[in-house]
């Protein structure tokens, strides 16, 4: 940190030093400004306190009024918009155009999916969903950047406290939570897999199934602790599954676009299933990753 950066060193080194947070060489003019003694303008304690109290009182007087006004105005705007919207389920609504007609009439044969919603999400608008999966992936990456523990951002004291908390949780395990989790977790996993793999024919699909799967893993992790979760979900498995899901989706959808596009014979009826699986893996990993990173800072 204290290494000197002189003017002659290359811009690359200076940039690296700037990224690392090293100080620029002190500016002479600033130094002069700093040296000048402060003007003695400190208010006394009582006056400071009084002024602070005054400000707080003003804030608490105005805050509810401002909040109410903003809420009422927003609600009025939204309500007038809703009033002016066409009625729910009317025949001549603008959404009942040729696009939805096409989806409803030809969806099953063009994408091989009985469920029109899945046909739309994964088939016709699969590119959107690919973007959404990327957003989820990046969200976990961003949370990792902020919250992941390593030796650089954790002091020994914090680690010690964390260990103590975990030991306490292990000794005084919540009996009700554990028993309930023991009964419920297999069924949650089963239901998640059912929803995930049955997205073609029944409501559900990648997003909902993945969320349920993630919730199941969260329940298991909350009830039985980190060690038992890490038997099947350590950091390596986690990143492999997450990346595999996204890559599988990208590859499959690429193939889907180039082979199964409109006008070509559709041999890819099973493709929806695999894409659903990929989305489900990404979503489940996102949910569990958020939980693990928020609660312990590691996966």
């Amino acid at each position, binding site marked *: 940190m204290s290494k000197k950066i002189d003017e002659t060193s290359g811009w690359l080194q200076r940039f690296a030093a700037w990224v690392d947070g090293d100080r620029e060489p002190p500016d002479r003019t600033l130094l002069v400004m700093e040296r000048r003694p402060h003007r003695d303008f400190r208010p006394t304690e009582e006056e400071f306190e009084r002024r602070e109290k005054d400000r707080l009182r003003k804030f608490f007087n105005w805050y509810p009024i401002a909040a109410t006004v903003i809420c009422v105005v927003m609600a009025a705007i939204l309500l007038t918009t809703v009033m002016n919207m066409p009625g729910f389920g009317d025949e001549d609504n603008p959404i009942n155009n040729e696009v939805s007609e096409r989806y409803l009439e030809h969806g099953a044969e063009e994408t091989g999916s009985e*469920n029109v*919603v*899945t046909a739309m999400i994964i088939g016709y608008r699969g590119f959107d969903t690919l973007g959404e999966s990327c957003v989820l992936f990046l969200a976990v990456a961003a949370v990792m950047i902020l919250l992941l523990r390593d030796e650089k951002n954790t002091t020994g004291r914090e680690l010690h406290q964390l260990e103590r908390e975990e030991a306490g949780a292990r000794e005084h395990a919540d009996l009700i939570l554990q028993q309930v989790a023991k009964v419920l977790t297999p069924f949650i996993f089963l239901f998640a897999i059912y*929803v995930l793999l049955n997205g073609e024919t029944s*409501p*559900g*699909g990648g*997003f*909902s199934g993945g*969320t*349920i799967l*993630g*919730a199941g893993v*969260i329940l298991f992790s909350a009830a039985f602790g980190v060690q038992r979760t890490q038997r099947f979900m350590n950091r390596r498995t986690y990143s492999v599954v997450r990346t595999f899901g996204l890559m599988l989706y990208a590859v499959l959808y690429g193939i889907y676009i180039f082979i199964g596009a409109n006008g070509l014979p559709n041999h890819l009826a099973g493709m929806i299933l695999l894409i659903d699986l990929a989305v489900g893996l990404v979503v489940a990993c996102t*949910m569990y990753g*958020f*939980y693990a990173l*928020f*609660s312990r800072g590691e996966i």
Partner: protein
Amino acid sequence: MIVLEYILLIGLIVCAIAAPLCKRLLAAVIVYMAFSLMMAVLWSLLQSPDLAITEAAVGAGVTSILFFLTLKKVHALKGTHDE
């Protein structure tokens, strides 16, 4: 069915008004969770079961868990030893 829908809609409005008025943050999160749950039932009554499943899992489940974790991190849960 239509009566159930009206009951749920009234519940939604009550929850939406109650959530910001709660003094305790934990209560606010739980009210928000109830809002999500009623919304999920409403979605399935409006014949969009896909949305209902996702709303129940994300809105009532995972979001609330993340809120609880955040409250625990900032020591806003009552009954924890370091409050």
